[in-house]
């Protein structure tokens, strides 16, 4: 599908996301101005407060946005999932430039002018309203402008907590290896940032009473916009140097299990004297891209994911058929070898709280269909959009939820256990299923296609490093679902070092 066709087909959804995005940015900037400008004024009056308050605002800005969302979810009143949480985070991010520029703007008012104002017999309030604020307004608007451009970028992350906006397309595009989604999301966000920047630039010019203008602030704002909005895309397109002769570059996706499986191969290779370059935690379909490009030699994958997301086939339920077709097509199209299955599946697990399952005596997904109309469901972007995801799932089981929230997958577990939602689609090997007392409903109509864990490895890497073949054949059928869950739990639940966990496991297995 060309980008143009994509736009025509998804025009109304894109507009909806743009609208959500604008509303999020607008409301959060409005609130940040209402809080930030008076705070800035107070800081110009009370010098002792200036350091601590600006310090706190500074720290706020350095917290990675996804981490901030994570902190906010369990909090009462301001937390939870959805728009409110996103707004709180966006306001916190926007405060610093607004407060700082208000302080700078007022303190930079020509002392002669301020002295003249006082000497003319103006009261404190008159000096502030008639002299200081009007003269500082240009700098304050610059701060609002910087904050707005940053907010347009950060709002793309808001999709992670189910607040919508253009991040929905960007996340989905990264996960599904879909350039159209990525481009539509990133391009729209970039255009929004540019539009907001030039609009506020016009406002700023209204307050130019003298010739000095801050070129630096403007450039900074633009730079931030470009970095935040298309940074992800640039990263995705980035190619580093190809693997050298004796080195093996092992990649993984951005979740625990993938990193664990990658670490297992890495340590086994190192034990055989092969030097390993670890490139773990790659987002979306970066590992696939990197593998095909030769930046990676191998990474762990799931047959169902390759079959539907990469090869774009309609989902089927026969594990053997899926494996065979993936193996065949990867060899033909990418010169990539698919290893023997590792022995476990990581499929979608439909999860509810354990206490609900016991109280309502739920065993299967079919059991849950009567409860669904009273329930809120929380699903990862992946599940919402994949061919083997939500649409077919709800149809197969005849499920109609009171509400469906699209949010970041790893946050859905916390959302479920803290009662923000009542049903989620997690990973069947997720360690937190047992630690958070979640219950997996059985897929009694066999809707979900097989997701057998395998390693994908470049054919030329296999010939270059013979040890690779030996390691991979040893790992065939070596890990059961229970074992995988336990390993995940060691890291996610008990917060242990993945390298240690892998070392122990290899020892126990006698590898």
């Amino acid at each position, binding site marked *: 599908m060309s980008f143009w066709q994509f736009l025509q087909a998804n025009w109304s959804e894109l507009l909806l996301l743009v609208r959500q995005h604008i509303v999020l940015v607008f409301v959060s900037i409005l609130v940040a101005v209402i809080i930030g400008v008076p705070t800035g004024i107070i800081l110009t009056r009370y010098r002792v407060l200036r350091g601590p308050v600006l310090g706190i605002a500074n720290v706020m800005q350095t917290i990675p946005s996804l981490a901030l969302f994570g902190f906010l979810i369990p909090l009462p009143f301001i937390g939870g999932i959805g728009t409110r949480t996103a707004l709180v985070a966006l306001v916190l991010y926007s405060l610093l430039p607004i407060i700082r520029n208000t302080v700078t703007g007022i303190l930079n008012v020509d002392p002669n002018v301020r002295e*003249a104002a*006082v*000497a003319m017999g103006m009261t404190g309030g008159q000096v502030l309203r008639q002299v200081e604020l009007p003269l500082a307004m240009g700098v304050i608007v610059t701060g609002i402008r910087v904050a707005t451009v940053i907010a347009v970028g950060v709002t793309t992350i808001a999709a992670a907590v189910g607040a919508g906006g253009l991040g929905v397309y960007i996340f989905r595009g990264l996960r599904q290896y879909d350039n159209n989604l990525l481009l539509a999301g990133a391009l729209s966000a970039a255009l929004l940032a540019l539009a907001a920047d030039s609009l506020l630039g016009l406002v700023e010019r209204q307050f130019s009473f003298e010739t000095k203008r801050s070129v630096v602030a403007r450039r900074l704002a633009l730079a931030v916009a470009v970095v935040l909005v298309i940074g992800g895309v640039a990263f995705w397109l980035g190619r580093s140097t190809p693997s050298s002769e004796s080195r093996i570059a092992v990649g993984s996706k951005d979740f625990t299990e993938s990193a664990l499986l990658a670490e297992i191969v890495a340590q086994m290779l190192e034990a055989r004297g092969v030097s390993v370059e670890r490139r773990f935690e790659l987002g979306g379909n970066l590992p696939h891209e990197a593998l095909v490009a030769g930046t990676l030699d191998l990474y762990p994958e799931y047959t169902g994911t390759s079959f539907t997301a990469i090869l774009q086939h309609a989902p089927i339920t026969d594990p053997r058929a899926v494996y065979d077709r993936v193996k065949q097509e990867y060899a033909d199209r990418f010169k990539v070898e698919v290893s023997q299955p590792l022995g476990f599946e990581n499929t979608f697990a439909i999860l509810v709280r354990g206490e609900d399952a016991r109280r309502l005596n739920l065993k299967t997904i079919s059991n849950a269909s009567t409860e669904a109309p009273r329930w809120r469901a929380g699903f990862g972007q992946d599940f919402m959009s994949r061919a083997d995801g939500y649409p077919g799932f709800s149809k197969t089981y005849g499920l109609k939820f009171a509400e469906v929230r699209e949010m970041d997958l790893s946050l859905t577990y916390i959302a479920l256990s803290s009662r923000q939602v009542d049903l989620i689609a997690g990973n069947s090997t997720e360690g937190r299923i047992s630690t958070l007392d979640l219950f997996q409903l059985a897929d009694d109509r066999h809707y979900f296609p097989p997701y057998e864990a395998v390693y994908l490895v470049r054919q030329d890497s296999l010939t270059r490093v013979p040890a690779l073949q030996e390691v991979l054949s040893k790992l065939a059928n070596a890990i059961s679902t229970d074992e995988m869950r336990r390993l995940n739990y060691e890291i996610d639940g008990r917060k242990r070092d993945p390298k240690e966990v892998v070392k122990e496991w290899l020892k126990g297995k006698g590898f």
Partner: protein
Amino acid sequence: MGHQEAQKALPLVQFHNVTYSLPNATIISDLNLTVERGETLVLLGESGCGKTTTLKLINRLLTPSSGEVRVEGKSTTAWDPIELRRRIGYVIQEGGLFPHFTIARNVGLVPALLGWDDVRAKERGREMLNLVGLDPDRFAERYPRELSGGQRQRVGVARALAADPPLLLLDEPFGALDPLTRASLQREFAELATRLDKTAVLVTHDVREAMILGQRIGLMHKGQLLLLESPERFRASDHPQARAYLETLNVNGGDS
């Protein structure tokens, strides 16, 4: 009426044993000074001598550490500072004009603060611009940045005079101007002060300016008033500080 007559008889400004000090320095020490009605008193001294501080003690931008400054017989600390300042015109270097106000609004500032109605304030503003030699039709709607330094200084004087205050304070008002503009503004200001019968205290480091404008010249040095004389007697003084200033006048014609 009797009360007002009594007030008129009082000197406009009196310093009684005034000391002003900061935590680590004494700026003014034990200053005694009386400004008579109608006179232009010039405080002359190098930078840091305390002459600007003296000025700010009069309109209560600063208050004395000890002693008392009286304006119209009343201590500045007993005045409502806002009311006091609105009765005193203040002119600083470059005029201290508000860059975001038009010339008309700048000049009409104190009348507006005093609550004059618009028509009267506007009329007064035009009158003041005429007084300082600026055509209201040309300048009223311009902004300070569109004016030359000399024109801005004229506007500063017009603004200080707008509410017809009994007292004018001028802090190096002509310091930033080129010599020719400065000379003509000095001449015009001397005429204006005489014509309007204003009391003025002017601060400068330029002895030539002091000689032209002052009815009395106070020479300040390190926070102390060394002497206070008429220009004629100042010229004849044998005080070493005064001689040092007068010698610069002979060497380079007073331009610094």
